[in-house]
């Protein structure tokens, strides 16, 4: 949230997929900025386009059938969309790294974890084997793996889920990237381990000043980890703002729904809980969306009026640091 020029700047991004002879956009009109040292949360249900957006930031949209069909992704002013594969390989790891949901399938089972970290270090720094190995051990220590000298000789299957995710984070951070993208990094882990991983993220961010993009479906995680939040629905950004105002005063009916439909942990639970708030129906498919003229959320929205079916609302600023895409946001009481 610094006023200086952002580290990463996404402008009018559109990502499309070709299916059955038609090209269907799955992410549309997406713009956002990320500053150094900031944590941005991207929230939404499956199919909202949050994971594919993350992949586009490191030039990994599966192509074919997908491609970035419009817009720019500027990293320090350099456009990633038009960068060549050689350049992308340099950017990945050095400047942007990614941590995926499933640590088992993202690690190579035939190499020890130490070798995998060292290999990444060698590829990027051109350091010697011995230096790279020392660096690997240092990284394992940094991510909080006990007795790293021994653990470096372990194969991925010999580690627990939490340890593997730490190794993934070590690989992602070994080249000290400026941006770390974490796509549901703790969804496969237990809550007590999740808490450890998030502590680690906070500490690392303090140490190496990286910006983090945290993609999650868990609003509790966003509340604990992020400075700013962006809510996506059906490929579009529908609300954005600082995390506190997002939770205390969500403006978009979908955001409100998302926040009120999760069962909240209470220290004084009632013996007869009220039913949860329900958002009816399901997310429309990209193919359905192509035929929809109005707001994509209108069919599920309890505040929708006729106007909502007619045209898609533009993202409008709200105060200095928020924006909402809803025709009725001013009429809806806080």
């Amino acid at each position, binding site marked *: 949230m610094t006023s200086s020029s952002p580290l990463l700047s996404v402008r009018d991004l559109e990502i499309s997929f070709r299916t059955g002879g038609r090209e269907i956009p799955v992410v549309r009109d997406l713009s956002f900025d990320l500053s150094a040292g900031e944590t941005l949360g991207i929230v939404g249900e499956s199919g909202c386009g949050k994971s594919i957006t993350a992949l586009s930031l490191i030039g990994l949209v599966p192509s074919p059938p997908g491609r970035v069909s419009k817009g720019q992704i500027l990293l320090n002013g350099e456009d990633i969309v038009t960068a060549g594969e050689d350049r992308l390989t340099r950017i990945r790891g050095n400047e942007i790294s990614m941590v995926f949901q499933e640590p088992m399938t993202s690690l190579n089972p035939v190499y020890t974890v130490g070798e995998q970290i060292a290999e990444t270090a060698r590829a990027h720094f051109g350091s010697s084997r011995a230096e790279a190995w020392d660096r690997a051990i240092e990284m394992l220590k940094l991510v909080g793996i006990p007795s790293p000298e021994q653990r470096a000789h372990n194969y991925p299957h010999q580690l627990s889920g939490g340890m593997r995710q730490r190794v993934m984070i070590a690989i992602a951070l070994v080249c000290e990237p400026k941006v770390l993208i974490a796509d549901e990094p703790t969804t496969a882990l237990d809550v007590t381990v999740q808490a450890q991983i998030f502590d680690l993220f906070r500490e690392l961010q303090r140490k190496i000043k990286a910006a983090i993009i945290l993609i999650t479906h868990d609003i509790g995680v966003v509340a604990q980890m992020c400075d700013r939040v962006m809510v996506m629905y059906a490929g579009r950004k529908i609300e954005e703002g600082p995390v506190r105002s997002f939770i205390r005063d969500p403006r978009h009916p979908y955001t409100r729904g998302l926040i009120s439909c999760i069962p909240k942990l209470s220290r004084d639970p009632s013996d007869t809980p009220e039913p949860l708030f329900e958002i009816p129906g*399901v997310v429309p498919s990209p193919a359905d969306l192509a035929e929809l003229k109005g707001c994509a959320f209108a*069919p*599920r929205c309890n505040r929708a009026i006729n106007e909502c079916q007619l045209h898609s609302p533009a993202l409008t600023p709200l105060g200095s640091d928020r924006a909402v895409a809803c025709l009725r946001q001013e009429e809806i009481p806080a």
Partner: protein
Amino acid sequence: MSVTDTTPPVAATAGKPLPKPVSPSRQVWQMFRQNHSAMIGLFILFAIIVISIIGPSLYTVSPRDMVWMPLTPPGQSEYLLGTDYLGRDLLAGLINGGRVTITIGFSAAVLTILIGVTIGALAGFFGGRIDNVLMRVTEFFQVLPNLLFAMVVVMLFSPSLINIAIAIGIVSWTSTARLTRAEFLKIREMDYVKAERSIGAGNARLIWKVILPNAAPPLIVVAALSIGSAILFEAGLSFLGLSDPNAMSWGRMIGDNRPYILDSSWGVTFPGIAIFLTVLAISLVGDGLNDAINPKLRQR
């Protein structure tokens, strides 16, 4: 104790017309239809089968009768494809031989699948000791030299069509058994199998009605391809002289004409082309099925 109240989660979709039911098999067929080479294969196969079935009653020359000078080249007599070393009509041989060849191929494949699927299903479903015993048996059959073993079987009994089909079936089921076992091992852990148990399904239902239909797609591909290999196997046996003396098959035509190959290449060429086309068509269909089935498996 029924519940009358229905909250409106359906409201959002209530206005929309329902999609048509699309069964998984139908999806496979839709994918298959878009595959040109597979459709060509299917067409060739269909044509060969039709010719084999109705050909003999349209073209009534007997494949056994000596009708003309031996070793007449194609196009030099009223017998279009020429004659063999005994002066028998090659075209009649092709038309009549197709029936025998395809029948042997088909029945050997059925036997392959029957033995392979039964053994693989039992081994995969029950696991443990049963699996151990059945897999050792499978390995035993796998290490036998196929052609030699089939020859012994055919020579011990008489070289009748049935015995040849049985011999081919007995030596070729092992890979089907392994594949079936692997599929069963995978599918028996699926939640829908557990769900069937939880509603009281017994082992017989689980094996034949629940797991087998879900394991079927890759097995169908293997079954199709094994018809092709059985046809080739039969040709190989005939080439070595092990064919039913009472039945004309393409393989036997090749075997019979082999000694005269330098004087009359057509005597082995035409049945060779017939076998090649049939096996090619079967392979194209098999590959098409494989492609049509797999994207569905990938997206579950």
